[in-house]
């Protein structure tokens, strides 16, 4: 049986990818709120996902406030779909 993608088989990273699969784009505050994570932890996990090319992270400004917007990439979408397929195999679905 295929191994589950270790990059996605982590609670927070999987939560982030699941959210981004469902929306066009989401900002840091929204992800933090929905995943109920800390800013530091979320930031580290976003860096990991971005480093793997699974998400794109755009940093910008709204007035004087910084805003980080995340979007899933095609590679991230494929990885998530493969992850779900493997999960189904494990669970015999």
């Amino acid at each position, binding site marked *: 049986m295929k191994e589950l993608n270790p990059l996605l*088989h982590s609670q*927070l990273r999987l*939560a982030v990818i699941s*959210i981004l699969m*469902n*929306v066009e784009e989401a900002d840091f505050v929204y992800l933090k709120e929905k*995943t109920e994570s800390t800013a530091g932890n979320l930031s580290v996990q976003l860096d990991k996902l971005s480093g793997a090319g699974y998400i794109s992270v755009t940093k910008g400004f*709204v007035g004087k406030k910084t805003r980080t917007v995340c979007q899933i990439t095609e590679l991230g979408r494929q990885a998530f779909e493969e992850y779900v397929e493997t*999960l189904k195999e494990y*669970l015999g679905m």
Partner: protein
Amino acid sequence: MEEKKMTERESLELITEMISRTKERYVADGSALLLWGYVTVAVSVLVWVLLVTTGNPAYNWLWNLIWIIGCIGSFIMSRRKKENFGAKSYSDKLTSQLWTVVAYVALVFFVCCMVFTFLKINTWTAMLVFALTVVPLTEIAQGIVVKERSLVVGGAIGMLVGIVTVCCICGGIGLGINWFIPMFIVAFIGMTIVPGHILNHKARVNR
């Protein structure tokens, strides 16, 4: 949320949970409809009253207040929206692109009418046709995308008045001030103000 080893079943539960958490916000915002609706209705009433009481066609230039006030209001609204960004859904993106196309089409219509005005040909009824065909059609499309019946019904009301308008123009029937502008106002109330309030009410209940 902490980092911990998950079982396969926990992974699946987490995915389901995250999808359900992002579903809650799929309610369209009626503020833009209300802004354009109230501005259009207020300007139309003003122009109608002035035309009926004075008979001076120069007051028709006041129609331009619609896009001037509407564009300023939309700009302020989009800035506020950016501050409370959160997340953008696929339907948010699609409807925003649809309305951007409508704005460009409106600009082309306006430029064409201005050119014809300089050539001493009055084509401003084309703007009415635009407002009562392109706008309602886009509203119907948005209603289908976000599965909101009030937008589809509102768009259909506008479209019906638009079809009547086109038929009158093609049949050489003059769009009389006494009946056409009131019909235009009623169409815009049904097309923008009513669905705008319905959407905002649903958004408040959903919160």
